[in-house]
């Protein structure tokens, strides 16, 4: 897959990445040649149902896959660096917490209940204070943290440092975690379903905050979610995954308004909010231990054809503007009009 000439090098690009987890029942291919790109300043929604590989992809990017996982193929570039070439220590030292900030799913569980918020967050500063920071001392970290707390609207930021996670509400905890992600000046924020555990009004507040911060700090955001509604509110681009494969990627407008992949289309149609007739998808997500061959969606696909099971998975760029790429037999036909990462 070649890069289209004019496009700037993305902040993060994942190409044809596979992840195999060795389980007692055999190897599970939880990611199957998945691809993803996050450009500078983009907020990319990574969408799919549970079991589609979103979390595995996030873990792979952060380098925190479990020890029994291996990556037999693929490529991951972040700011031009090959992440797969870095060992665990280098990842912990140079990437995680420093260049990539992380916002977890459940703010109630993501902080260690036995330590104050200040202790936990300054631990990140201690190991990852940016090299170009004028002052890398603990006091400087504290000052920056208080600034950030103010920025994410945590009341009494100074006292907040001395409080324990359970002394915050769910929304505040998520704000704390956002501050943690921003602390050392990262370029990319990976947010793994950060609002799923929150109430809608709180979710709305967090989404607003994220959008604002991304704009103000010129951040790239990889936003994992299962909710197209959230995508439509926050993201500029969308990548849809199914059973470990990337099925469709493009701008929000392109994918949401006119989904081309049968899975994307079906998923959008599952949202009761659309006022349109609700349509479920028959069957369920296959087990990664015994996935269908070829396009993994074909057993559930209303438009499946004989060739689907044999077809190698491959993301193909569609012609036209805005950019839009598809991993489907239907997209194979137009030929190599323009492959997209």
């Amino acid at each position, binding site marked *: 897959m070649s890069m289209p000439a004019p496009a700037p090098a993305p902040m993060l690009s994942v190409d044809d990445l596979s992840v195999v987890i060795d389980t007692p029942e055999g190897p599970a291919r939880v990611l199957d040649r998945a691809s993803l790109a996050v450009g500078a300043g983009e907020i990319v929604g990574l969408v799919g149902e549970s079991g589609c590989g979103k979390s595995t992809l996030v873990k792979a990017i*952060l380098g*925190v896959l479990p020890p029994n996982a291996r990556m037999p193929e693929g490529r991951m570039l972040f700011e031009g660096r090959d992440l797969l070439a870095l060992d*665990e220590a280098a*990842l*912990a*030292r140079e*990437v*995680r*917490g*420093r260049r990539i*900030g*992380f916002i*977890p*799913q*459940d703010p109630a*569980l*993501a*902080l*260690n*209940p*036995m*330590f104050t918020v200040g202790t*936990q967050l300054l*631990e*990140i500063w201690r*190991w*990852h204070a940016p090299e170009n920071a004028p002052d890398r001392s603990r006091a400087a970290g504290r000052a920056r943290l208080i600034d950030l707390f103010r920025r994410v609207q945590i009341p009494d930021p100074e006292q907040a440092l001395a409080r*324990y996670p*359970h002394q915050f509400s769910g929304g505040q905890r998520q704000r704390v*975690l956002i501050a*943690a*992600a921003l602390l050392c000046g990262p370029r990319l924020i*990976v947010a793994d379903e950060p609002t799923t555990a929150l109430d809608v009004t709180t979710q709305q507040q967090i989404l607003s905050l994220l959008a604002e911060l991304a704009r103000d700090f010129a951040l790239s955001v990889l936003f994992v979610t299962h909710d197209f509604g959230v995508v439509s509110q926050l993201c500029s681009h969308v990548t849809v995954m199914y059973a470990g494969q990337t099925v469709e990627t493009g701008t929000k407008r392109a994918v949401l308004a006119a989904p081309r992949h049968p899975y994307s289309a079906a998923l959008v149609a599952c949202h009761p909010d659309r006022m349109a007739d609700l349509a479920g998808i028959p069957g369920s997500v296959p087990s990664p231990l015994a996935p269908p061959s070829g396009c993994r969606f074909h057993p559930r696909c209303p438009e499946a054809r004989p060739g689907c099971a044999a077809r190698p998975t491959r993301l193909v760029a569609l012609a036209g503007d805005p950019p839009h790429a598809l991993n489907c037999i239907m997209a194979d036909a137009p030929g190599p009009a323009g492959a997209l990462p």
Partner: protein
Amino acid sequence: MLALILRRLALMIPVLLGLLVLVFVLTRIVPADPAAVLAGEQASPEQVAAIRATLGLDRPLHVQFVRYLVQVASGDFGTSLYTHRPVVQDLAERMPATIELALASMLLAILVGIPLGAVAAVRRNGWLDQIIRVFTIGGLAVASFWMAIMLQLVFSMQLDILPLRGRVDAGVPAPPFLTGLYVIDYLLAGNLALARHALWHLVLPSVTLALPATATIARFTRSSVIETLQKDFVAWERAVGYPRRVMLWKYVLRNSLSATVTQVGLLFGLFLSGSIVVEAVFGWPGLGDYLFSAITTADYQPVMATTLAIGVIYAVVNIMVDLVQARIDPRVAEQR
């Protein structure tokens, strides 16, 4: 925090009362006659009866019990029939020895057991984990009197590097009584050599006593660390780039300790009961030996008072455990 202590102390009273009833009933169920034993073999039945009356043993059980409660409530734990000394005095001499032994064992069990369990958890199913598993199973399976004799044979008789028995060698003066713990009292008295001397005497008995507890703590810590490692916050800590070492030994371990600390409180009971055998073998002048001889001669007052004292020690240790737990886990502190 003060409220917590007060509440736990208040809860202690009914527990200790229950303990007293239990021990009272148990000691009296056994058909033993302290009067006859006390009177000696030369006594006549009339003389025995006279002693029985003097001791109030001819009264109905409930009257005896109420009398005893009144006596205890006024701070009098009675007098031993044999030593003629207030039981409190005997306890004051013997309890510190048991406490010193139990504390040393606990310290040992914690200092060895927790790292052992943590390492086993981190290197789960690795060779180190297997070795630690064998050790922990062994630690629980080995009878402590056998262990004691083996340690004596090897370290005292063959290698001659540790004392065989006792708190100090014969002829070494006891330290001035401050805490009753020899090692500490010698230190406070400024005698470093004797503090070391007392410490070496402490080694074999506390190792013997600590072994099964170390195994238990290691097992608990192992499973608790493994459980903690599955927690979301560990994933977060990893994802935001905590160095592995810091994450494990500072953050994960502290969370895992919460469960282990509770266990330590329960284990202290094991130390107290285990000390009976260990004290006998190592000639450690603690409560075990005292209680044993009091039971065999039906010397009720020391039996009751010792049991009560052990109950109090156990309860106090568990209150301390709660405080430590509240220190470790801020949520616990707030619930109180």
